[in-house]
C-alpha cells in the first residue's frame, strides 16, 4: 500500500509540472485564440537564459533578467508576428506558432549553445521518509511554487484592473475592443504571463533534467493534459495535470511490465481520448454550441 501511495504522490508531483506547461497553453489560447505551440520552446529559452545569467549574477537578478527576456519575446511575438495575422483562421495561427517555435529554439540555442547544462538554484536534494513513503524535497518545492503561482494568477485575474481587462478580452474580442480595452496590449500582457509561466516550467524541468533541447519536448507531455482539462480552462489544466501525472505513473508501474514498458509516452493520450469521447470539450472547456 505504501508503495502505491509513493507512486501516486510522485505522479501527482510530476503532474504539477505538466500543469505548469499546460497552463501556458491555456492562458494564451483563452486570450488570443492562438494554440501556442512554442510554449515548450519558450521554456527552453527561459532555461537557457537563466543558466547563462546565473554565471554572472545572483539568482534573484538572473530571474528578473530572464523574465525581461521573456517580456521582450512576448512583445516581439505579438507585435511582429500576430498583429498582421489578426482574424485569420485558427489553423494559420497555429502554423505561425510552429514557425515561432523553430525561431525561438534556433535563436536561443545559437546565443547560448546547444550543450546540455546543469541548472542549480540552491535547493538541497533531500529525501524524507514519511510512513514508508519517500518524498523528494525537489518535487515538493516545485509543487509549492506551482501552487503559489496558480494562486497568484487567480488573484491577478480576479482582483486587478489588468486582470479583468484580460478576462474581458478572453471572453469576447469585439466587446472588449468596444469598451476601450487595447486588444494588442492585452495580448502582449498575456504572452508575458505565459512567458513567466514558461520560465517557472523551464526552471522546474531544467533543474530536474538539465537544460537542453529535449526541454522543448515537454510540450508533448502537456498537450494531453491540456485537452483533458479543456483547452481554454486554467483550473482544467491544473486538475488534468494531476490526473495525467498520477495516471501515467500508476500505469507505468502496474500495467507497464505486462506490455513491455514505455507506455508513459502515449498513456496520457489514451486517457484523454477516452475522457473526450464522453465529454468532447474536456473537463472544464468552454462548450461550443453550433447552429446552422
Amino acid at each position: 500500500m505504501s508503495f502505491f501511495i509513493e507512486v501516486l504522490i510522485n505522479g501527482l508531483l510530476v503532474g504539477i509540472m505538466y500543469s505548469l506547461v499546460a497552463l501556458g497553453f491555456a492562458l494564451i489560447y483563452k486570450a488570443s485564440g492562438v494554440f501556442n505551440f512554442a510554449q515548450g520552446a519558450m521554456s527552453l529559452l527561459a532555461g537557457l537564459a537563466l543558466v547563462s545569467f546565473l554565471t554572472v549574477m545572483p539568482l534573484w537578478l538572473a530571474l528578473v533578467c530572464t523574465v525581461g527576456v521573456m517580456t521582450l519575446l512576448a512583445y516581439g511575438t505579438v507585435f511582429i508576428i500576430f498583429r498582421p495575422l489578426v482574424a485569420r483562421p485558427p489553423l494559420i495561427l497555429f502554423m505561425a506558432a510552429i514557425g515561432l517555435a523553430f525561431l525561438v529554439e534556433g535563436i536561443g540555442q545559437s546565443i547560448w549553445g546547444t550543450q546540455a547544462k546543469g541548472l542549480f538554484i540552491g535547493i538541497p536534494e533531500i529525501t524524507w521518509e514519511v510512513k514508508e513513503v519517500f518524498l523528494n524535497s525537489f518535487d515538493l518545492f516545485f509543487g509549492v511554487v506551482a501552487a503559489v503561482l496558480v494562486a497568484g494568477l487567480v488573484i491577478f485575474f480576479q482582483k486587478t484592473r489588468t486582470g479583468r481587462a484580460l478576462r474581458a478580452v478572453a471572453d469576447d474580442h469585439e466587446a472588449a475592443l468596444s469598451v476601450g480595452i487595447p486588444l494588442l496590449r492585452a495580448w502582449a500582457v498575456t504572452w508575458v504571463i505565459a512567458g513567466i509561466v514558461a520560465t517557472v516550467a523551464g526552471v522546474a524541468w531544467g533543474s530536474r533534467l538539465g537544460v537542453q533541447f529535449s526541454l522543448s519536448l515537454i510540450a508533448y507531455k502537456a498537450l494531453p493534459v491540456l485537452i483533458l482539462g479543456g483547452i481554454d480552462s486554467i483550473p482544467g489544466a491544473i486538475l488534468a495535470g494531476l490526473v495525467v501525472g498520477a495516471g501515467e505513473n500508476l500505469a507505468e508501474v502496474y500495467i507497464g511490465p505486462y506490455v513491455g514498458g514505455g507506455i508513459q509516452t502515449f498513456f496520457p493520450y489514451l486517457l484523454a481520448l477516452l475522457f473526450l469521447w464522453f465529454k468532447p470539450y474536456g473537463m472544464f472547456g468552454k462548450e461550443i454550441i453550433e447552429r446552422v
Partner: protein
Amino acid sequence: MLYRECGNYKDTYAKDMAIFPIPFDRWGLGVMLVLAFLVIPFTTSDYWLSSIMIPFYCFSLAALGLNFLTGYAGQVSLGHAAFMAVGAYASLILYSRFHVPLLLSILGGGIVSSAVGPVFGIPSLRIKGFYLAVSTLAAQFIIEWILTHWKWVSGGVFGTIDAPDLYVFGWILDTPAKKYYLVLCILVLLVVFGKNLVRGQLGRNWMAIRDMDVAAEVIGVSLFRNKLIAFAVSSFYAGVAGAMVTMAYYGAANIEEFNLVLSFHLLGAIIIGGMGTVLGSFFGAGFMILMPIFINQALLVFLERVPSDLRANSEAIVFGGLIVFFLIVEPYGMARLWHTIKDKMRLWPFPY
C-alpha cells in the same frame, strides 16, 4: 491575354467537366509532365534525382494525402508521419518476407495504412478542432510504440528493416533514374485519381463537412462515413508515400525517420502550399523539403567556418522565419499566389 477563357466553347458535357477547361493549363501541365518524364532524368545528376527529386515526389504525395484530410475534409491530423511508417513497414514486410511483387507490396502498404488510419479517425466523430488535432498525436505515439515493441514487425529493438534490391517484373531498379521513374509513375497515377476523387461526390461531401459539419449532416451527408473515408484515403496516400520513400530513398524502414517533426512538416507543407488544393501540396512539399536543403547549402557558402551546430540553428531560424513570413504575406498559401498570378495573366499586358 495569355490565360483566357474567351473563345473556349464548352459544347459537349465532356468539355464542360474537363479537369482543365482552359488550354493554357493543359499546355502547362503537358510541359510539366514532359519536364518530369523526359528532361529531368537526363539532364540532372544522380545526386539531384536520388536526394532531391525522389523525396520531393514522395513527400508531395504524403502532403496530398494530408490535404485530403485537412484541406478538403477539415480534420486536422498531427499523426500523419505514423501512417507513413505503417505503410513503409507493411510494404517492406510484404516485399522482403513474403516475396510479394514490388508494386503489389507498395499497394499493400497503402492498404494496411488505410486500415489503420480510420481507427485513429474514430475520435473525429466526437471531437473537433484543436482537441482533435492533439488527439491525433496519439496515433504518432501509439504507432511508434507498437512498431518498436512488436518484435515481429521491427525485427529488433532499433525498429529497422533494410530494403532488399528492388525488382519490377524481373527488372532490377538499381540506378536513381529507374527508381525516379517508379516513384514518378505511381505519383502521377495517384494524383490523377485523387484529383478526380475530390472533384466528385466524395470531395464535395468532404468540403461540406469542412465548411460546417452540422449543416452538412442536416442536408444528408453522413459524417460517420465521410470522415472515416477521408481518414482511410488520406492514410492510404500516406502509406504509399511512406512505402516509396523507404524503398527508393532511405533504403531501410526506420521509425526514427517518421517522427513527429515530419508530421509537423507535412502539416506545414499543406498550410504554406495551400489547403484544399492539389497543386498546393506540391508547392508546400517543395517548400518544406527543398527549402531546408537550399538554406543549408546557402549557409555553407556564407558561413564556411562556423561550427555545424550553429549552422543547424541558423537553419531553424531561417526556416521558422520563412514560415512566419509566408503566413503574414500570403496566409492562404502559395496556391493562392498562383491564383492571383493567373488572374493577372487574364488581362496582361493591359491594366484592365
